[in-house]
């Protein structure tokens, strides 16, 4: 029997049992749909987060407390403002290249509006080093830092929420109950907030010194260094290490490049994606067991047909192939519909929810490949059983 003929026979049999075929397909359909959808969400999260890190500009070095072991949990920082200044003095050229901050969360209040936002107590160079642009007004100055002036630069969302329909420049507001004057508004970064990271427009920048007073600390949570070129990243890293080592122990700080962070975060999210895919894969497996089950029922129902076909000249191979093809067609159709629904679902999620979703080529190939493979694997047992039926016994059965 030719492959085309076998396919036609398989289709005939599946169409003869429409409802059952459809229900059997459903298991695989749901499995494939979940694989595609969950992988899309995982992948979307990954590109959003790595995108956000890349959005900070290029050739950045992050100086963080602790020895850089992510498994160790948060460390108490030993950085002080003087460290920023000492690093700045040692680095050559390129204008403002070092910044530091202390981060906190406070209630902001202005003219009856209230908002809880991220407060970034920063050195004057922070916007330049981390590629944040000013939309209106002016930024924080060295003099603001030196005098611990209570001035604030608002993120775009913060400005809109606290001062709806008004120009916030020159107005006063309270940060954690302390009066501040708004001097500038940052340009919108966009992307909104997602469950995977803070909204970069929902924050406020204050001079590091006044912020430290607000938080009751003299430490910095992190220091950022921008290298002038990719080639000088390592040289700058050596400088930062040398300067900090004069005052701190090696395990009190680590200097990590932007690429390293993207790599680590990307790896973590890739694992997350794979775990999601594996969980969805289990439902695909269950769908496969369903296919196997129904194919066994089908074989036992069609015993007489199998006996007849053998009497008419079908070889064991022809019968096996026929039933295997039926299983593959079932799972293939389920896979194709599941894929379509998965892609549609991912687009719906991306459009409606704050969760990004990104359908990738590999998840499509995987889903289709796996669904056909499921048909093959779970179809083999019933198909072999069909092929090996004794025609005499099969014909006798009523």
């Amino acid at each position: 029997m030719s492959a085309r003929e076998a396919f036609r026979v398989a289709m005939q049999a599946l169409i003869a049992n429409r409802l059952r075929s459809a229900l059997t397909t459903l298991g695989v359909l749901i499995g494939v749909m979940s694989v595609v959808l969950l992988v899309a969400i995982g992948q979307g999260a990954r590109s959003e987060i790595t995108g956000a890190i890349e959005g900070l500009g290029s050739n950045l070095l992050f100086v963080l407390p602790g020895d850089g072991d992510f498994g160790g949990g948060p460390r108490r920082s030993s950085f002080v403002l003087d460290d920023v200044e000492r690093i700045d003095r040692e680095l050559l050229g390129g204008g403002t290249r070092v910044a530091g901050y202390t981060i906190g969360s406070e209630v902001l209040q202005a003219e009856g509006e209230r908002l809880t936002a991220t407060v970034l107590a920063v050195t004057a160079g922070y916007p330049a080093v981390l590629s944040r642009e000013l939309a209106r007004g002016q930024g924080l100055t060295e003099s603001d830092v030196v005098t611990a002036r209570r001035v604030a630069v608002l993120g775009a969302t913060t400005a809109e929420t606290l001062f709806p329909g008004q120009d916030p420049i020159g107005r006063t507001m309270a940060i954690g109950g302390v009066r501040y004057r708004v001097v500038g508004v940052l340009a919108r970064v966009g992307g909104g907030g997602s469950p995977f990271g803070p909204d970069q427009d929902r924050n406020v920048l204050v001079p590091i010194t006044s912020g430290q007073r607000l938080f009751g600390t003299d430490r910095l949570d992190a220091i950022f260094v921008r290298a002038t070129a990719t080639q000088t990243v390592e040289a700058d890293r050596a400088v930062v290490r040398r300067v900090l080592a004069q005052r701190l122990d090696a395990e009190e700080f680590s200097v990590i490049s932007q690429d390293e962070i993207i790599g680590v975060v990307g790896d973590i999210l890739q694992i997350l994606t794979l775990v999601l895919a594996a969980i969805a894969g289990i439902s695909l497996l269950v769908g496969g067991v369903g296919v196997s089950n129904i194919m066994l029922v089908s074989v036992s129902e069609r015993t007489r047909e199998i006996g007849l076909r053998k009497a008419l000249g079908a070889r064991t191979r022809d019968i096996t192939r026929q039933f295997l093809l039926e299983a593959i067609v079932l799972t293939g159709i389920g896979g194709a519909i599941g894929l379509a629904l998965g892609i549609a679902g991912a687009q719906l999620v991306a459009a409606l929810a704050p969760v990004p979703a990104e359908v990738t080529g590999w998840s499509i190939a995987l889903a289709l490949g796996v669904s056909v493979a499921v048909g093959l694997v779970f179809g083999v047992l019933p198909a072999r059983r069909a092929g090996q039926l004794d025609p005499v016994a099969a014909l006798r059965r009523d």
Partner: protein
Amino acid sequence: MSGGVAADASALLLEAIDVVRTYRLGRDVEVPALRGVSFQVDHGDYVAIVGSSGSGKSTLLNLLGVLDRPTSGQVRYDGRDVRELPDAELARLRNQRIGFVFQSFHLLPRLTAVDNVILPLVYRPGTKRERRERAEAALAAVGLADRMAHRPGELSGGQQQRVAIARALVTEPALVLADEPTGNLDTTTGEDIMALLESIQAEQDTALVVITHEPEIAHRAARTIVLRDGVIADGSSP
């Protein structure tokens, strides 16, 4: 009807030589169904195999149809011992040399008459169009030119058996094996079916082996083999 009594070896289609078929029931119980049966069927022969229930008729039919192999002895087709042929070769033998007609027709209910007749042709080379043409010709030959697109459920018992006969003939077999072909039909329809089988046997020089428990059917054959308790009681030699 030629009667098929030809002495030369080239006329010999199949030969059963001391055929024994024993079924095992459980571990130690052996039930002999055939206990040494020998006979020959020539090309164009018309043979009736008669016997009561339990005489070994069905077992013999399965062996002649190469759906089964003998426990000992030989069934030889065109001089080849069936026991030595692999399964795929037996399948080919059934497809190319043998046409089956069953008591209960064995049509696939979801297929139309013409698709039922096409069934044996899908297991041999050929285009879809050729198969269809052959199936339509076979249906026309059994008088069902106007019932091609009907499904078995829409046909009478006699018409269903005609479809089954068309299916047996569409491959132009050397042997038609009919197992109680009139068993599920009324007397008149049964007569018609037998007449149809006989006309085909005569016109196409196809050997016809009819298995029956009805003496009036058996008497129509050129030769009768009577089975009793697994052995030939009468008519082993032509």
